[in-house]
Structure formats: structure tokens, C-alpha cells
């Protein structure tokens, strides 16, 4: 997966805001979703490793979270 082209993104203290100027839609991501989106071009296992380190959780749990967020971000059209 990779981030959809043309999106505008801006970090805020507890997450990330994304604006899609073509669809005129905006999204507010929490910190975990933001990490997944920002590292979307990595492999799932690599994203999971980032989450595991950041949140001090096991690899399996982190991988499950990474996959769930990737799916959710894909459904929202933020990843392609």
C-alpha cells in the first residue's frame, strides 16, 4: 500500500489531520493511525515493529493493529 497522491497532511499534537482537496473531505487520525499512514510504504511487519516499539506491545498484537489500520485507511481512500 502507499499513501494516496494529492492529500494534504498536517501533524497535530495528538495525531494527524488529512485533507483530500479533490473530494473536499477531511480526516482526523489518532497517533497510531498516523504512524501507520506515514509509514504505509513499508511492509506490514515493519510497520508493526514501529508500533511495537512505540507502544511497548508484542509483535503479534502490533501486527494485528497494523493490519486493521491499513485496512481502515484503505477503506477511507487514504491508502491505495
Amino acid at each position: 500500500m502507499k499513501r494516496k497522491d494529492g492529500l494534504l497532511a498536517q501533524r497535530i499534537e495528538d495525531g494527524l489531520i488529512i485533507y483530500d482537496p479533490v473530494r473536499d473531505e477531511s480526516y482526523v487520525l489518532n497517533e497510531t493511525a498516523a504512524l501507520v499512514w506515514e509509514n504505509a510504504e513499508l511492509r506490514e511487519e515493519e510497520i508493526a515493529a514501529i508500533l511495537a516499539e512505540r507502544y511497548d506491545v508484542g509483535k503479534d498484537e502490533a501486527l494485528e493493529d497494523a493490519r486493521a489500520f491499513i485496512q481502515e485507511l484503505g477503506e477511507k481512500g487514504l491508502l491505495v
Partner: protein
Amino acid sequence: MSEIRGGLVTLHFGKRVAWDYPPELAPLFGGFISRFQDPGPPDIFLAVGLREQEDSFEIEDRSCFFREIPSELDLINVLSYWVRRMLAPRLTDALVLHASAVKARSGAILMMGPRGSGKTTLVKALCERGYAFIAEDGAPVGLDDLSVFPSMPMSFLPEAIAGPTGLFRIVSIRYAPGSPTSLGTIRGRAAAAELLRENFNLRATGKPGLALVARLSEEGFLSLVFPSKNTGLRVIQEIAELGT
């Protein structure tokens, strides 16, 4: 309308609008609307006319027609709505928030919220108590200096009208009959979500507008739930006077 000359020039959303109108409407343009007069070269030309068909305004033609001479308030209402439709989506140097605004001692207080949240009720009541009017339903916040620019009202004719005013407070308001009054602070993601929902022109401002959303959401703003006009008015006045 083939030729727009532009007579009176007024300031709305930080842009100068040159109005062209027939002699029959001159007394109306010489009245309340002229209080928004601003010298300088116009940014946009708009024409207002009379014709026998029904009232209408044409965004692309930049022309607006009335079937008969309207009342001053009807004219203001239509033109204000029209100007917002014309200008807000084109503004690149200010983020237009779905908010009413008045000028307090420390600067502009924006009362932001969706339709029915009490924006008009509160701004009207505040203006009746001596606050200078800035905006009723769309308040543009300058991307660089956070100035809030005045624009015509929609539903009443306030006595005092402020010029561009520095932003002092944003208050997210919700009129909720039967609810207890509550005043809190909202910041971060929750604030960002509200700002993203309650603006008219993020598409035009692009990245700088998004940066302003981030800045305002990190600074945070007040969130007021009020059960009655008097309660909301009292709290907003306290915020205006005490800065709390």
C-alpha cells in the same frame, strides 16, 4: 448584465466588492450597506438590478436581480448570502469559519457552530448590548495574522460595525434546551475535527489553511453548551470582559 461599472465599494471577508446598481436602489446602497464602505481598488465587481422575473442571483454572471425594490433587510439578507457564496470559496488568504463574531475589548470573539447552534441569536443579542458586529454566519480568519474581517449581516442591522479585528477567542457553541450550562476547553483532535467541519473554504486555502486548523486546534478553544439565550449571552459576555 453586460457591463459592470461598480459604484459603491464595500469590504467583506477582507475583499473589496464594487457594487453596480440602478438609480432606484441607490437609496438602499446609501444606507446600511454604505457603512461597510472601504476605499481602495475593488477585488470583485457585482451587479444588482431590477427585472420583472422572480428574484434571482447568478453566481457566474456576478449579477443579482430583484422583482421589486426590496426592504433594506431583505436586500442585506440576499446580498450577504450571495457575497458569501461568491467570495468564501475563492478566499486563499483566510479560513472562513461557520461562526458569528463580535468585537470585544481584547479582540474578536467567534461563536462557531452548525446551523441551529445559536450563532445568530447570540450575535444579535451582543450587538444590542453594544458590541460591534463583525460577522453573522461566516467569519474569515486571516492565515497570517489571525485578523477577523467584517462582512454584512444576514438577519438584522447592527448599530456598530467593527473593522478588521485580531482574533481573541473561538467559542464552540451549542444551544441545548434543558441541558445544564457547561463551559470547557477543547483542543487537539476534537478541536481539529470541529474546525474541519465548520469551515467554508479549506479547498481554496489548501495547505496554509490546514496549518491554521492545526495551530488553532493545538491552542484550543472554548466549548459552551447553553440552555437559553440569556445563559449563553451571560457566559459570552463574561468571556468577552474577563478573557476567561
